[in-house]
């Protein structure tokens, strides 16, 4: 089975800092895995996610995502790669508040199509209806301005947008921290079910370890990031 993520001796140092924030000797994630990535704030997880998304560029080491060497791509190629292959879900504020929910979803498709150099596929309408229906998004919700929806609804719209272009990798950065526990569990179940249906690999980042049971594997930042260990942040658990 091919790897979704393959990292070897990766280091990243922010400009104007003398010590690396992130040092990962080795990390591999297989395709289709649902990984729970546990990390406290300051553990370098945001940096790692930015590297995986291709927004930041590492100084040394190997960073291979979905069989593409990100370090060998230009910034623009990495942006297109992200538009084509990845779905990103933040903690909150995933949507442009001044567009309707539907337009937000189409915006994602537009970027994907743009990166592919094609027009948005015609079978997308069908997928769109199935996906939004399975996420419990009604036509009324989709017509409303994203800013008017509740946080839970917004997060579901964000999942719909992330999944609609059939990405191979979904990166979710604390997507449930703004939700209450009931909505949180439902959200995770929905996300994982839809990801499984679309054969997408999921990297789910959270500081809340109680969520880990729904995932196929679990990894903690302080095991992954040897810089973090050196800085003495390891003795939390």
């Amino acid at each position: 089975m091919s790897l979704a993520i393959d990292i070897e001796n990766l280091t990243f140092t922010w400009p104007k800092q003398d010590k690396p924030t992130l040092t990962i000797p080795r990390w591999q994630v297989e395709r289709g895995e649902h990984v729970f990535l546990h990390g406290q704030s300051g553990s370098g997880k945001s940096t790692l996610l930015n590297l995986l998304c291709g927004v930041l560029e590492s100084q040394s080491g190997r960073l291979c995502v979905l069989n593409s060497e990100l370090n060998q791509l230009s910034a623009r190629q990495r942006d297109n790669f992200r538009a084509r292959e990845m779905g990103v879900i933040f903690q909150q504020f995933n949507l442009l508040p001044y567009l309707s929910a539907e337009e937000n979803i189409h915006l994602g498709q537009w970027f994907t199509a743009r990166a592919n150099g094609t027009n948005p596929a015609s079978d997308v309408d069908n997928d769109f209806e199935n996906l939004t229906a399975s996420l419990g998004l009604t036509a009324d919700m989709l017509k409303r301005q994203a800013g008017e929806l509740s946080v839970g609804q917004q997060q579901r719209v964000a999942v719909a947008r992330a999944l609609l272009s059939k990405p191979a990798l979904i990166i979710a950065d604390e997507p449930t921290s703004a939700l209450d526990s009931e909505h949180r569990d439902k959200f995770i179940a929905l996300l994982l079910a839809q990801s499984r249906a679309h054969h997408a690999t999921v990297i789910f980042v959270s500081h809340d370890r109680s969520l880990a049971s729904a995932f196929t594997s679990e990894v903690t930042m302080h095991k992954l990031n040897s810089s973090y260990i050196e800085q003495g942040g390891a003795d939390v658990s």
Partner: protein
Amino acid sequence: MLVRLTLASVMARKLMAGLTVISIAVSMFVLFSVEHLRGEVRQNFERAVSGVDLIVGARTSQLNLLLYSVFHVGSPSSNISWNEYVTLANAKSVKWAIPISLGDSHQGFPVVGTTEDYFTYFRYGNKNALDFALGQSFTQPTDIVLGATVAQTLGYQIGQEVVLAHGSAKVSFTHHKQYPFITVGVLHATGTPIDQSVFVPIKSIDGMHSVHQTSTISRHTSEHTGNDTHEDDHAQHDTIESDLQVSAIYLGLTSKISTLQVQRVINTDQQAPMSAILPGVALAELWNLMKGVETSLSLVSSLILLAAMLGMLTMLLASIHERQREIAVLRALGANTFLIVLMIECEAIFLALSGCVIGYVMTNVSIWLLADYVQTEYGLLISPLGYSDAVLEYVLLALGLAMLLALVPALSAYRSALSNGLNAK
């Protein structure tokens, strides 16, 4: 999509964006108005006389002669005698000669004593002849013809009796009451000083003043001045034609080529100290005097535009701070940094263009509202602001400036998109 995105984003920040557009619109309004007014004033100046080859007056400066003979500003230092006019009019190279006598007024409007030739030969604007809105030229010594503004302001009709006053002030102590005129004609509006003028037969002006001298009753028409200062002004008058005084003469020549030659002959005449000027050259010299005013007006309006653009810059910079999340969302979807820069540039162009369009509309609306007032009050004919190269230049200047200044927030967004990555602050 980019345009839709930009518009939606701007709409989400209606208040700030609206205020920015209004400030740009106001500055464009000032810029357009100043520029347009400048052009219109200049055109109005140049309209004042055309088709006249030479203007002749008693020896004086070119500007002074032009100012009093065409614009009725100031007064002649001395006059030409009627004999000199006759000599000139009969000269071989002269096709026509219109004598003009100034000095009297009616309700503050200058009175021009002239002959019927004025209405036949005088040209204004683009070689337009004068024509009558009502009535006709004078045939009797007591006939009077009114400019369009005079008739409109005073509400005079054909047949209206008019009494002229001595001197040019609106309130004059000396009225030529013994010599009333009858309105026989009203001219069409021309957008030149003609609209504000009252025309009488030149021979009647002299006759009118003579009446004062010869009639004992007339000596006390000036109600408040007991003693007669008037006498000094007209001490030498009688009705003999050769004693008529002429303030200036408009000349039309048989051959345009001889203009300079005729000018030199008149200017160097030893017997009669006269000046002949080319109206076009004198107008250009007059306009040159305005150059400084023109330039400073342009400078001020450009500075206003710059201020509005700096306002836009501030607004955009402030909005970038608020829009960090928006930028992070777009980045996460796969937007490259160039697209973010493009979006901000798009917004700046949209704001500037809206400002230009609104400013343009504002200019035309105010011209439409004020044109009548300005014409009656200042005698300025202002046409609507159409399309011209100057308008296009200013719009391009505004857009260019907007694009240039928007680079500052665009690059700041670019930098933060690079360094903050997907972590919206």
